[in-house]
């Protein structure tokens, strides 16, 4: 909740500062800047690059601030670490009361810490000592050393002077103390507002993991090998999918018989999510490379078939007629008219197919694999290595984005007439 409010505040503040300050100083003077109607004119809406930069920086700053990152100067309040104390009041069955103090030492998990040494003190309630890890809590059987115990009928009636009953809790300095239903005390030191590394590690821990896994490896393979295998499967699966799918799509676009024969198959297989095929592929081909490649082949096949078919049906009939009237044979029509004319559709299909394949390979590796990006993050999550999980997700995202950019570049290079006809 706090994070959401901070995020909205940054959004609004950045908007006001950039719009009133920076943009005015760097006003553009192109045609679009002269448009007065921009609300509703989609072509006049251009992404504000300042907003993009601030958006990304904000996410990293929030991440760092709420994980106690060393890279970020400002932090949300962290968990309490150090020594603290509170007192409890024990009431004996005869109604007499005595106070005792609990000395608590809160330490960072993973560091060595000893319980503070405590003088037992006077009275029938004796002072206690406990140690608690930050973000954790500790149960205190406070009557263990007391002269009157719970089984004798003694009970805690107040903490730091505030009356309390079993099931209730009381705020003390640097934490809260709850009384369990059986009457013992449970001390939880203040957690602050930062995320525990086991939920969300700071950015530097994730970056450090990249270096570590890139050189030392994880689960018998280095980071690059994991990513390489995922990419390799995608490329091989997509390649075979395109190799079969494009000619099949052409055949369906050019022949009644092929169209009739494969229409039911394609129309049935198209809406089946590739992920739904994972169990069957594992049964048939196991969890090795061939299973993965068969799955990705199937994921790419239908998309490429349909895009090639759409490419053929998208040929303007006047182009076909013109080519025949100029003396082209069927083969020449195919080579010089139908194939180039369907390239834009095929590229659109290829972009979609690569995206689907990348998503499918990660999912398939999550289910079962010996290596690969998905397998890496799945195993890491079982061992609570959240930093590896986050690193994996970021790298998977970057690679998916990179694939899409490469496909777009290839498209503008190979099909420059797309959208300009």
């Amino acid at each position, binding site marked *: 909740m706090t994070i959401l409010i901070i995020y909205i505040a940054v959004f609004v503040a950045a908007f006001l500062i950039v719009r009133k300050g920076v943009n005015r100083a760097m006003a553009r003077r192109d045609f679009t800047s002269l448009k007065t109607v921009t609300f509703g004119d989609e072509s006049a809406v251009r992404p504000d690059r300042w907003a993009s930069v601030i958006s990304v920086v904000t996410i990293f700053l929030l991440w760092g601030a709420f994980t106690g990152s060393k890279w970020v100067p400002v932090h949300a309040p962290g968990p309490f670490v150090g020594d603290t104390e509170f007192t409890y009041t024990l009431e004996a069955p005869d109604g007499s009361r005595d106070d005792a103090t609990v000395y608590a030492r809160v330490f960072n998990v993973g560091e060595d810490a000893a319980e503070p040494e405590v003088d037992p003190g006077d009275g029938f309630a004796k002072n206690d000592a406990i140690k608690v890890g930050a973000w954790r809590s500790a149960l205190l059987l406070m009557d263990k050393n007391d002269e009157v115990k719970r089984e004798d009928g003694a009970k805690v009636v107040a903490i730091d002077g505030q009356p309390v009953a079993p099931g209730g809790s009381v705020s003390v300095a640097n934490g809260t103390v709850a009384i369990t239903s059986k009457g013992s005390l449970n001390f939880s030191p203040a957690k602050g507002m930062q995320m525990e590394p086991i939920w969300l590690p700071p950015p530097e821990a994730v970056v450090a993991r990249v270096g570590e896994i890139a050189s030392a490896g994880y689960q018998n393979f280095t980071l690059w090998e994991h990513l390489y295998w995922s990419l390799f499967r995608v490329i091989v699966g997509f390649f075979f999918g395109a190799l079969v799918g494009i000619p099949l799509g052409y055949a369906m676009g050019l022949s009644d018989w092929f169209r009739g024969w494969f229409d039911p198959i394609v129309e049935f297989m198209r809406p089946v999510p590739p992920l739904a095929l994972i169990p069957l592929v594992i049964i048939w081909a196991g969890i090795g490379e061939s299973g993965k490649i068969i799955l990705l082949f199937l994921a790419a096949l239908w998309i490429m078939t349909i895009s090639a078919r759409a490419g053929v049906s998208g040929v303007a009939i006047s182009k076909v007629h*013109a080519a*025949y009237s100029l*003396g082209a044979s069927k083969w020449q029509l195919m080579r010089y008219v139908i194939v180039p004319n369907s390239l834009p559709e095929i590229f659109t299909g290829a972009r979609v197919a690569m995206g689907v394949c990348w998503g499918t390979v990660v999912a398939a590796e999550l289910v079962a694999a010996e290596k690969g990006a998905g397998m890496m993050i799945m195993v890491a999550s079982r061992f609570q290595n959240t930093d590896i999980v986050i690193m994996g997700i970021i790298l998977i995202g970057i690679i998916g984005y990179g694939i899409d950019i490469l496909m777009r570049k290839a498209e503008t290079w190979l099909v420059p007439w797309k959208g300009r*006809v």
Partner: protein
Amino acid sequence: MSTLSIENISMRFDLPNGSHVQALKDVTLELQTGELMSVLGPSGCGKTTLLNILAGFLAPTEGRIMLNDHQVTGPDAERGMVFQQGALFEWMSVRDNVSFGPRMKGQKKSVYMPTVDHLLEVVGLQDFKEKAVYELSGGMQQRVALARCLANDPDVILMDEPLGALDALTREKMQGLVLKLWKETGKTIILITHSVEEALLLGERLLVMAPRPGRIHKEYRLPFADDGVGKDLREVKKNPEFAEKREEILSMIWDMEEEIMGRAEESA
């Protein structure tokens, strides 16, 4: 001498709802080499169907087309087509579009290149040879289409509203170009148009077709095309005879349109 003869062409096909369409009925025509005939008619009179049959894209249900003493059965390089628009190959440069026909025949570059370059010069595109066709304006694209058709050296050129998508000024310039190319090359040309003025200006012969069933309504022989070669076409239009013919044909087509409307209202 190549003669194009259209012999008793009829075209009739069934519709999915069980009725049938008589698109053409008993169309008979003969064209001599080098004649330019424009075809006019209200929509639905079958002029595009007739052109598609001539090109060989459709088979007539009765009758036959004879060209150079053989029967037309399918598309062939002897009959070139110029379409309204969208028939150029965007993935080829202007020069590759124009040289498409010779390349499909397997001609050597040294054979067709001079012709292609010459034709590009004739249509005024010598500076745009290497451009992509989508970079050209609509008028320039139609000039590429004309040059592409001529580069293949067909006996007959079939034009399906080739200037229909152009603005009025460009259209006038292109009409002059069509006349010039016709005279220079001596090709037989059949040109379908919606514009009465264009039909009068370009047609040495003018065919008016009537709808339902598509048939020949009236044929004219006109002097304006010969008058107009190499001249300002606006001068031709000022000829009182031109205005008279235009009015005559316009009212003829208007009457047909009204008849169609009347029949549609009756059946409705």
